[in-house]
Structure formats: C-alpha cells, structure tokens
C-alpha cells in the first residue's frame, strides 16, 4: 500500500529468514486479475489486494501476510485464501488482525509458524525501528503534502522522497535512522517553493485504503498539488497503529452534537476530522472511498450535516475500478473553481 512496502519489507527481512518478495506497485494488470477472481460487489480494496497477492505468488511467494480489520477488511483473508486455493495456488495467508483486535500471542504464533527460529527479541528490536520508520515517513509526508503543490522545480519532492526511502531500507539501528530522518527533514525544507500567503486548503478524509493507495484514488493528491492546493490528510499508518485508539475518544467527545457511537472503521474519526477542518478554516473537504464501503456510506449523511452547519463545501468521490477519469477531473476542477470564487467573494465582502 503506497510506500509502506518499504518498512514492511524492512521488518520482515530482518526477523524471518524466508525470502521476502516485495509487492509490485499496483498497475492496471493487478486490478484486472483481482477483479476477475473477486465476487461482484465486494469493496474495491478486496480486488486490489487479491490482484497484488496473485502477482506476488507468480513471483514465487508462498506465504502471504496481511493486516487489516475494523470492518469487512478483517474477513478478507479467509475468502482470499480460499479463492487462491481454488485457483490451484498452494499458499498460506495470514491476517495479523482478527475481529478488529490485535492479539500479540497470536502474532507470535504466526511468526513461529512462518519461521520456527523466529526470535522474539529480534522481533521487538526491529519492530521498534519499523515503528519509528513509519512515523518518520508520515511526518515527512505531512510536510510534503502541504508544500508539493508549490515546488518550483517540478518533481523535486518526489525525487528526494525516493532517495530517502532507499536509504531507509538499509538502516540497522535507531541512531542511524534518526540521523537520516534529521538529514532529510532539513533537505526537504531546503526545497524551494513559491507558496503564497493565502492558498486554497483542502482536507482529505475517507476510507483508509483508498486514501493511502494513490493508484486507487486516481492520484488525487498529485492532481490537487498540480492545481496549487495545500492538502491535509489524517489517515496514515502511524495514525491507524499508534494514535487511533486515543484520538477516537477525543473525536467522539468533540462531535457529540452529531454522533454518539463509533460507526465502524474510520467513519466516526472522519466526522471528527471534518468538524476540525471546518473550524480550522479549511476551504473545502474531499471525502473519498471505494464503492460499497459501508462504514463510510453511513458517515456520509452526518458529514453532509456537519459541513452544511459550518458552510464548508464537501465533495464525495466513490471510486470503483471503472470510474471515469475524465469525470473525476471535471468535478475536481469545478470544486476548485467553486472554492476560488467563494474566497474572492469573501474578500469582496470583507472589503466593503
């Protein structure tokens, strides 16, 4: 999923002796394969991940590891394993999360099965480095998102990021990782931008897979950056693994006039974020999800209400494998125009 293949590969290659096959980036072919063997109306991430698995198997993988939960994501693995079996692939598929909870003992058992010599000390050591690596990556990404739309030399952020990921792959210690992070942080800040004082700022919320896998959202962030828009998004792996359990309580408290309970996956989180974005003065909100994502569908009427109350425009995108790219483009452009017109109008009113 996105660039997270790097830390995932890093972790596994250090703690088990098996050969680790990095998933290939998602392409049209991945989706074609995934769709061909998936039931008709599962949510889109099922199709993407199934496609990735088959591509991995063709590269020689015979053990597949997945981590997901909170909605029907947690049940993917069982059906996917059956589908792969029916296709004649003899593989073992592990999901590290069950019924939305992470059970450390279970994970240990799985690791032992994968490699009987798995050492728990090594696991903890490299696990903690990986955790830091993910957090550093996410920090840098936050900075990139707010600035990439204004880079003077096109592609400079992306180039530096690729270089950073490459260096991350080879670290062995916490000290080395921290040093690298500090070095790159400085270099990112050195990249020249021409960011005006008042830019259009948009918050992206929605279903986690679609947000984190750029291929599945038709490179939304890149498109917005090319329109010189500053972007904020909340969902990343650091959030899901290390912050969510605390944040969600806060979100529920802050949005008690709208919702009382959690609504599955990140639905309640997104309602909290939407309100936060409205209060922080963001010009607009984009909500994205894959088609048929039930928790987010449930959140939509609430989001509409929050945004209407604060008079902040929100636009919803539901991505399917067949979504027309031209349609997305037109609607995004119109959204941008709308926000720009509103901004100019606000200025006009405040001047009078």
């Amino acid at each position, binding site marked *: 999923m996105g660039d997270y293949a790097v830390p995932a590969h890093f972790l596994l290659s250090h703690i088990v002796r098996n050969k680790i096959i990095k998933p290939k980036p998602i392409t049209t072919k991945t989706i074609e394969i995934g769709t061909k063997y998936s039931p008709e109306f599962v949510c889109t991430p099922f199709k993407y991940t199934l496609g990735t698995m088959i591509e991995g198997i063709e590269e020689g993988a015979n053990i597949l590891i997945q981590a997901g939960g909170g909605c029907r994501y*947690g049940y993917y693995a069982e059906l996917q394993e059956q589908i792969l079996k*029916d296709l004649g692939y003899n593989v073992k598929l592990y999901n590290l999360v069950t019924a939305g909870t992470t059970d450390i003992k279970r994970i240990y058992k799985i690791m032992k099965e994968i490699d009987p010599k798995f050492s728990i000390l090594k696991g903890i050591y490299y696990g903690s480095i990986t955790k830091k690596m993910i957090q550093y990556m996410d920090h840098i990404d936050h900075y990139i998102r707010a600035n990439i739309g204004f880079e003077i030399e096109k592609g400079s952020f992306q180039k530096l990021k690729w270089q950073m990921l490459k260096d991350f792959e080879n670290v062995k210690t916490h000290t080395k990782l921290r040093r690298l992070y500090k070095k790159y942080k400085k270099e990112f800040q050195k990249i020249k931008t021409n960011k005006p004082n008042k830019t259009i700022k948009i918050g992206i919320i929605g279903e986690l897979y679609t947000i984190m896998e750029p291929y599945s959202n038709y490179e939304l962030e890149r498109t917005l950056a090319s329109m010189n828009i500053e972007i904020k998004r909340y969902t990343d792996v650091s959030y899901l693994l290390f912050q969510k359990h605390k944040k969600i309580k806060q979100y529920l408290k802050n949005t008690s006039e709208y919702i009382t*309970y959690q609504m599955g996956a990140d639905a309640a989180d997104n309602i909290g974020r939407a309100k936060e974005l409205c209060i922080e003065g963001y010009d607009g909100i984009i909500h994205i999800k894959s088609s*048929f994502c*039930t928790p987010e569908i*449930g*959140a939509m*009427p*609430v989001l509409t209400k929050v945004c209407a109350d604060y008079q902040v425009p929100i636009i919803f995108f*539901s991505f399917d494998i067949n979504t027309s790219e031209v349609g997305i483009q037109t609607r995004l452009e119109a959204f941008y125009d709308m926000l720009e017109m509103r901004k100019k109008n606000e200025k006009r009113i405040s001047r009078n």
Partner: protein
Amino acid sequence: MDKIKIGIPRALHYYYYKDLWKTFLEELGCTIIISPETTNETLERGKKIANDEMCLSLKIYLGHVSYLESRCDYILVPRIDNYGTYEQTCTNFLGLFDIVSNLFTNKLLTYNIDEAHHQTEQNAFIKLGLALGKGKEQSILAYQNSKQKEEKQRKQKRKNEMKKLESNNPKLLIISHPYNLEDPYIGKTIKEILKNLQVEYINGEYLIDHKTIQNSTKLSPNLYWKYNKELIGTIEEWKQKIDGILFLTTFPCGPDSLVNELMIRKIKIPHLNLIIDEESGSAGIETRLESFIDILGQTTK
C-alpha cells in the same frame, strides 16, 4: 396521563427482536406503533432519504422510519455493536442510530449493546426502562419476563421448522437474514414461488440454537459477524438433511458478499445465490428458482 407512543420500524432489528420489544415495552405501559408492511412506496420513501450506495435493506428501513415520523413520541432505534469480540454485527447496525438521528428530526429511543465493552443486553434494557421513566426493579423484571417469553417463542418456531426437515418434498435451506426473507417486499414472492413448486423450504434463522455458533467455526474459523455465523452454523448442523441451499441477500450487503461467496466455494450441496436489488423483477427470480429446483429434483431422485 397518556401512554407513551413508541414507533417501531418494521425492518432490520424488528425481525430479530419484535417479541422481546413488544413484551418489554407493553409491560412498562407503552403503546407501540409498528409501521405497516413494506411496499413499493416504503422503498420509494427510503430511496429519497438514503444514500445511493446503501444496501436495499437499509433503504427499506429508512422508508419505515420516515413513515413513523410525527406519528409517535419516540422511534426505537437500537445500536447493536456486538455480543462479544467474535460476535459482531455489520457496520450498518453500528451506525444505524447515528445515521437516523442525522437524517430525521423525530425524537429517538435507543439502547446500546456492546458486550465486548461490558454493555450487556440486560444493562441496555435497564437503561431503556430508566429513559422511559420507570424504575430499575421494574425494568429488570420486565426484561426477564420478555426474555423468557421470547425464548419460549423461539423454541416453538424451531420445533415447527425441524418438522419440515422430515418432509418428503425436496428440502431447501434458506440462508438469509430474517429482515430480508421475512420482509414482504423482498421475501414474499420467493416464498410463494417455492410453495407453488412444492418445495419444503426451511428458514435457517429459525433453526438457530445455542450451539449453532460453534458449528460455524468448522466452515469459517475466523468469521466474526454474529448473524452470519449463526446462519452458516445451521448449514454445518443440518447438511445431511437438506437437498439444497438458497442464499438470499440484498445488494450490496457487505458481510454476505464475502461469507456467502466463501460458503459457495466450500460446501458440496447444490445451491443458488439470489441477490435482490431495487430493480429485481419477479419474472427473473421465478425463472432462476424454477430451473434451480429442476436441477435439485434431478439430483435427489
């Protein structure tokens, strides 16, 4: 003082908890108003309010809520999260209360079941009683009485359904959430067609017993949706007695999309997967059911 009027949408939870609710609320001195049976108009109402991508069953539910608006003091919309970590419900059931409260202005009556976090059904019903201005003791008593009555009714239904397993006609086990099979708009034509074809159909939901859930782990060890677990448990338990299985689901049900697909790949019993959406015409369903029963007749002979 006038009795409190409580509206109950005839959809989703209603088909699980109608007996329990009825006894409990009436014992506490409330009047209950149940929305009339689903018709095309219910669905049309629901569609106007619902998001396009919501499942058919939820659209119907919202249609029923819309009917009850301004016809009662409260509408009962529970929030049922889970009966334990491995017995969860679908995310629509989690979100239902908040979805309804943001789409409608009517006052709602609710309770929350989240046993993984120590919110048991009994506690939830005590709180419900308190919200209605009744005492704790009275609420506990009412709950226990309703639970007993519910259990009795469940046992009776199960007995009736078990009898059908002895029939000489082709026996078809229907795996369907009760809010689909028992909803007139979705299930009525299907039941009629089956009757005309002289098929003995067995409602899987009625066969559920305390041990059914354990049986489900043989077919799917990691499944964590209570309602699906119970249903597929009946397959494991009665597979020797039945000739075929009808999977009936609404478009685009999240849990069913995965669980039914897995079942179809695992079980060796003749089966038909029927997915109902807003446009399903009865003619199409009839043809599919007929040809399926023909095949069934040939294999059982």
